[in-house]
């Protein structure tokens, strides 16, 4: 009996991958310092010229491929690297030093890079650290061209390969994706790093910051990567493997295409209740066209990703262009634009130069927007101007008091007056909804339901705040249970308030994409679910095979349960029953 091990890392890109490990060694050993003769100076200078030239060409090509797979905005990540690679003055100084030190190009180049990055290395500022990462990525490329191992391999991996490495650069992540890897795991890196951004745009499940993972895992080991939870399961047992198989979602493009095979979308329960399904989206990509073609709208557009991609706030014109192209692509399907949810785990140096002692409880979400009205207004102007097709809605994140919602609404009204004065078009009836993701908002959901056009439950933050648990903290993560009675009661209160006021209420957190949670949420009265695109097909199939009556019975019984053990058990029993009834849904992907 093999023992299964769980390795905790940091969630970098959601989705689940099941497969076999391929441990990739990235060599960052020092380049050789070989002495040369004076007559070799010329040759060494030519070598470094050629290596730099190749690196620049390669980066340009990578930038293009990234744009193809992950959408235009992602290409900006490579701009800084191109500039670094093309630094003519630096190249001059390398050649000067080759002549002075009488040393080979590799040695001089890497020693000058080390000199140049010494102050960046000491900096704690994440912008400065990012520059360091960019410089390292470039120097690695130049050195690999110098040593003749320059061309990145392009042979495909065996099916279901999961890459494990000490450190993975954005370009490497793209390369792994193109060669068919289904997930990536690295020992270093953070959720904000560019590699994570690329992985998310590619829907490639990724876990980073998994301490010394490259030493713990061997080639060929069976792995489960849960990118959303930041967990890696090494040599999982059959039961775990099977339970994860139903969540697998690296190949979302395929699963989106399979939506065409459904009888009905949005799905209808066997007793005639329609459930709205929509996608959670972070970045533009090839999935947009596929989703739009199959009449899927966006239930949660995480707009902060436009900000995370550039190093400072995009202006109104840039934001308008971004939102408008999204709205255009999905029209007539609806797109719910959630205003910036920055702070906590997402970069906010620009808004907040000094770190907070407790960022999850600090300046984030709507608080950041209300605290920086100029930036908020810029975003609102851009969203409103993109609403002319009448398919855009606005959603406000992390509300904890109705006063915040009302203040935001007043700002929206003022922006509308401005736009009207400037004779700029927008949807005058645009809907403004409230995201319910704090216990205080859930407990006062009635008040929100009276004022908002719709409610949406963000289950991840709601659970974090309800259980007072940081799920990235392995010592307390066990308390992070989505079926906890406390969480279910708050969700139920929110749904009831919305139903009472006859407004739609959706669930858009991770729970909405969890196959075992779907019958429960529908039974509780959610009118719609928004989830990662990879889960839509299975969710639709489940709903079409389910009756509202049995979902309601499940919800009634589960809400009465006293402990998380009971609720989990009820949900699991129901899920297994459904699984045996709908075998096709669960076994189509093994």
């Amino acid at each position, binding site marked *: 009996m093999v023992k299964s091990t769980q390795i905790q890392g940091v969630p970098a890109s959601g989705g689940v991958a099941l497969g076999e490990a391929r441990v990739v060694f990235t060599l960052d050993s020092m380049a050789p310092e070989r002495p040369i003769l004076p007559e070799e100076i010329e040759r060494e200078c030519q070598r470094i010229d050629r290596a730099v030239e190749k690196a620049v060409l390669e980066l340009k090509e990578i930038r293009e491929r990234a744009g193809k797979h992950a959408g235009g905005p992602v290409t900006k990540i490579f701009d*800084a690297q191109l*500039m*670094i690679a093309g*630094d*003519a*003055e*630096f190249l001059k*100084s390398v050649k000067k030093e080759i002549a002075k030190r009488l040393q080979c190009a590799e040695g001089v180049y890497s020693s000058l*890079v080390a*000199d*140049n*990055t*010494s*102050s*960046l290395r*000491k*900096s704690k*500022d994440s*912008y*400065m650290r*990012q*520059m360091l990462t*960019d*410089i390292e990525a470039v120097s690695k490329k130049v050195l690999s061209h110098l040593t003749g191992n320059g061309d990145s391999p392009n042979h495909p991996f065996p099916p279901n390969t999961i890459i494990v490495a000490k450190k993975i650069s954005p370009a490497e992540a793209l390369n792994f994706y193109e060669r068919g890897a289904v997930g990536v795991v690295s020992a270093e890196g953070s959720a904000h790093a560019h590699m994570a951004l690329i992985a998310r745009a590619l829907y490639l499940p990724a876990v980073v910051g998994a301490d010394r993972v490259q030493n713990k895992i061997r080639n060929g080991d069976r792995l489960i990567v849960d990118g959303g939870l930041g967990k890696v399961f090494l040599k999982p047992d059959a039961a775990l493997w099977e339970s994860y198989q139903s969540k697998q979602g690296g190949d979302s493009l395929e699963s989106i295409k399979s939506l065409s095979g459904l009888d009905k979308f949005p799905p209808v329960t066997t007793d005639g209740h329609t459930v709205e399904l929509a996608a959670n989206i972070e970045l533009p990509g090839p999935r947009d066209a596929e989703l739009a073609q199959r009449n899927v709208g966006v239930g949660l557009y995480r707009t902060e990703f436009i900000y995370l991609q*550039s*190093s*400072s*706030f995009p*202006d109104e014109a840039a934001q308008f262009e971004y939102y408008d192209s999204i709205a255009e692509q999905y029209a007539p399907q609806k797109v719910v634009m959630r205003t910036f949810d920055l702070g906590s785990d997402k970069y906010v*140096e*620009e*808004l907040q*130069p000094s770190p907070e002692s407790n960022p999850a409880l600090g300046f984030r979400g709507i608080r950041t927007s209300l605290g*920086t009205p*100029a*930036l908020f207004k*810029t975003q609102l102007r851009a969203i409103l101007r993109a609403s002319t097709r009448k398919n855009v809605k606005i959603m406000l994140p992390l509300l904890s008091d109705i006063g915040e919602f009302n203040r935001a609404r007043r700002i929206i009204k003022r922006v509308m007056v401005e736009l009207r004065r400037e004779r700029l078009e927008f949807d005058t009836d645009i809907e403004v909804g409230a995201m319910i993701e704090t216990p205080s908002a859930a407990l006062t959901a009635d008040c929100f339901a009276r004022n908002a056009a719709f409610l949406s439950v963000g289950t991840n933050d709601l659970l974090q705040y309800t259980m007072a648990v940081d799920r990235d903290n392995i010592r307390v993560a066990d308390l992070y249970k989505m079926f906890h009675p406390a969480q279910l009661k708050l969700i139920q209160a929110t749904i009831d308030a919305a139903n009472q006021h006859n407004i739609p209420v959706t669930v858009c957190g991770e729970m909405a994409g969890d196959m075992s949670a779907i019958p429960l949420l529908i039974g509780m009265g959610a009118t719609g679910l928004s989830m990662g695109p990879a889960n839509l097909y299975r969710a639709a199939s489940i709903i079409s095979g389910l009756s509202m009556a049995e979902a309601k019975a499940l919800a009634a019984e589960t809400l009465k349960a006293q402990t998380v053990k009971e609720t989990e058990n009820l949900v699991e029993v129901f899920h297994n029953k459904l699984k045996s009834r709908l075998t096709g849904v669960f076994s189509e992907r093994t």
Partner: protein
Amino acid sequence: MKTGSVTITNRLGLHARPSAMVVQQANKFESEVWIERDGLKINAKSIMGIMMLAAEQGAELVVMTEGTDEEQALKAMQEILVSGFGESNPSS
């Protein structure tokens, strides 16, 4: 040779985008352009050099220019370094 001092005022300091702008500005001139910070002197026409400064908000820099257009170059460099690099000011 012309010399002038300047303090970085934008919140984010000389990160990637401002660094690029500084390099582009320096490259418009014939003259040699250097920036010095705490005894570290770098070539302002090189992005690697600028990044080496790791100049955050409040960093005090000395700009040095030498060549036929040293006067204009110094003025232009000082202008760009205090410009804020088009960073929007969240508190306004």
